[in-house]
């Protein structure tokens, strides 16, 4: 029967062009939507890598004109002490502007043993940065000024992605690395979990953390503060006043990291919702189109259906034949669609992992088959209800 259906489809290929095109277009749209959804879902299902609740960020512009490192250091240490003296404050750390969910990015290239890793996020941090953000160590340790001072080589903490890219499954802590094009050497003292710095739906990537030195205070502009559960709006106001009094002539902005995360997630998810709505509308129209094409085909084939019933086809086999024909036609379109879709993982388009495209491809194929079954089912049943005596008499 399958061979018979193939012959029928092949001999009617001109009439089936519309159907084939509709399926191909639907597949392209579904594949795009699925790739996006699978990519975001896989990112979403990974841990965020930090504890963002009750973390506040304070952005400021350095109010001091001096370049003197000691003066700068003293000024900012005083602020730290004043903040830590507040009972609601648990931890305080200075950070470069590209802390998680900030929207700022600082990247660099890194060539290691001929392996070109680019881009790599680079963060300037302090000893308490890990505590403030609750970052999880996978290997080794975080920065510790007392211990780090003893090292001749500058310390560096890397994330899991960078570790995997550089060392595979081998341990990284304790290894000294030197970029191919740099003279400076770094000692990896620890590995932390990847941090989803751009929100829950965005991918992580290789990153390393370097330590702030006293010279950095001249350009740093961010404080991260872990507060207790009793830190309310009144406390925020009090803290703002304190910082304003200590850092005069500067613009202060306090933001809550959980709200920043929501905002970053919104930036990702709102376009997806818009795209999905448009795609859903398109698929709805395609489904109506398919339904119409199948309905029309059946109305054009009433005599054939009547004949088939006369020579031995049951209602069930007529219905099954029409659904099978639609599925076979869909398969032809899917073969073409898959040929193009498979190029995405092969060419690593948009730097999305190949697995995402392959899952999206399978889901898209499944979706198209379900769509075709859904659209063919009712016309197929209607065809099965055709009375052979009437259908044969009509022609």
């Amino acid at each position, binding site marked *: 029967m399958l061979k018979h259906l193939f012959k029928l489809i092949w001999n009617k290929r001109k009439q089936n062009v519309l159907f084939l095109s509709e399926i191909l277009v639907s597949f392209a749209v579904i594949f795009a939507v699925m790739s996006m959804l699978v990519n975001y879902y896989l990112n979403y299902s990974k841990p965020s890598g930090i504890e963002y609740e009750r973390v506040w960020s304070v952005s400021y512009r350095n109010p001091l004109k001096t370049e003197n490192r000691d003066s700068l250091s003293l000024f900012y240490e005083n602020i730290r002490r004043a903040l830590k003296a507040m009972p609601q404050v648990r931890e305080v750390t200075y950070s470069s502007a590209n802390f998680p969910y900030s929207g700022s990015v600082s990247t660099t290239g890194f060539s290691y043993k001929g392996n070109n890793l680019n881009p790599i996020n680079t963060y300037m941090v302090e000893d308490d940065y890990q505590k403030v953000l609750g970052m999880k160590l996978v290997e080794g340790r975080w920065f510790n000024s007392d211990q780090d001072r003893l090292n001749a080589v500058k310390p560096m903490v890397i994330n899991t992605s960078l570790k995997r890219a550089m060392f595979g499954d081998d341990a990284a802590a304790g290894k000294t690395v030197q970029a191919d094009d740099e003279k400076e050497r770094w000692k990896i003292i620890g590995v932390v979990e990847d941090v989803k710095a751009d929100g829950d739906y965005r991918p992580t990537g290789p990153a390393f953390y370097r330590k702030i030195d006293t010279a950095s205070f001249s350009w740093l502009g961010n404080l991260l503060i872990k507060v207790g559960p009793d830190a309310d709006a009144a406390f925020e106001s009090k803290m703002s006043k304190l910082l304003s009094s200590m850092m005069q002539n500067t613009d202060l902005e306090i933001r809550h990291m959980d709200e920043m995360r929501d905002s970053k997630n919104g930036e990702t998810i709102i376009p997806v919702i818009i795209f999905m709505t448009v795609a859903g509308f398109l698929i709805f129209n395609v489904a109506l189109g398919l339904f119409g094409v199948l309905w029309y085909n059946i109305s054009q084939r009433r005599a054939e259906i009547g004949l088939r*019933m006369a020579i031995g086809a049951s209602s069930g086999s007529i219905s099954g034949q029409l659904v099978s024909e639609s599925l076979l036609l869909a398969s032809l379109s899917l073969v073409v669609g898959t040929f193009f879709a498979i190029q995405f993982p092969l060419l690593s388009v948009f730097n999305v992992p190949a697995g995402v495209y392959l899952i999206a491809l399978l889901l898209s194929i499944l979706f198209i088959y379900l769509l075709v079954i859904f659209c063919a089912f009712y016309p197929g049943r209607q065809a099965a209800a055709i009375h052979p005596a009437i259908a044969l008499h009509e022609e």
Partner: protein
Amino acid sequence: MIQLQNIEKVYRTDTVETLAVNGINLNVAKGEFLSIMGPSGCGKSTLLNIMGLLDEPSSGSVSIDGQDTSRFKDRQLAHFRNEKLGFIFQSYHLINDLQVLDNVELPLLYRNASSTERRRLSEEALAKVGLSNRMKHFPSQLSGGQRQRVAIARAIVGRPQIILADEPTGNLDSAMGNEIMDILMSLNEKEGTTIVMVTHDEHMAGKTHRLVRLFDGSQVQ
């Protein structure tokens, strides 16, 4: 072979009730070649459809080869039609998108016959109707007479005991009509196939064993 007992067929709409077949009792013996004649609209085709289990009578019973078909479900009816009956229609009802050989194979598809078996039987059937050289043609490439011969090949490919022909020569000129009639008579004589044929043509009806005349749904001869 076929027993029709008190067959009635009524077509009802909201406002009109039409009695298409009225109290027909008819026995068709095994190996008989019966023709049914009558003016247009007298119920000939309706009666043939009822005999071919393509339509249900409003009342009465149809027995074929000793089996009462009134309680057959859809699958049983389909199987029974496939095994026992062959149909020939005035307008051939060939599938234009399939080659002649594929058209002839159609009944065997619903028997789950192997492709080799289907091909062998179809080639045999086409040889019987003299169309061995047209197997790869499409119906649109054939004359009316050739198309009807393909339809006959399709009707006999499954070796049915009964052939029901609804005006098989109606669309053909007399020469072609005679050719078709010769094939049907040969099937009846050589293979013992029971044939019931609806026709308007007295000449063709005269060649059959028995003639039944209908008028306004009733048997008058």
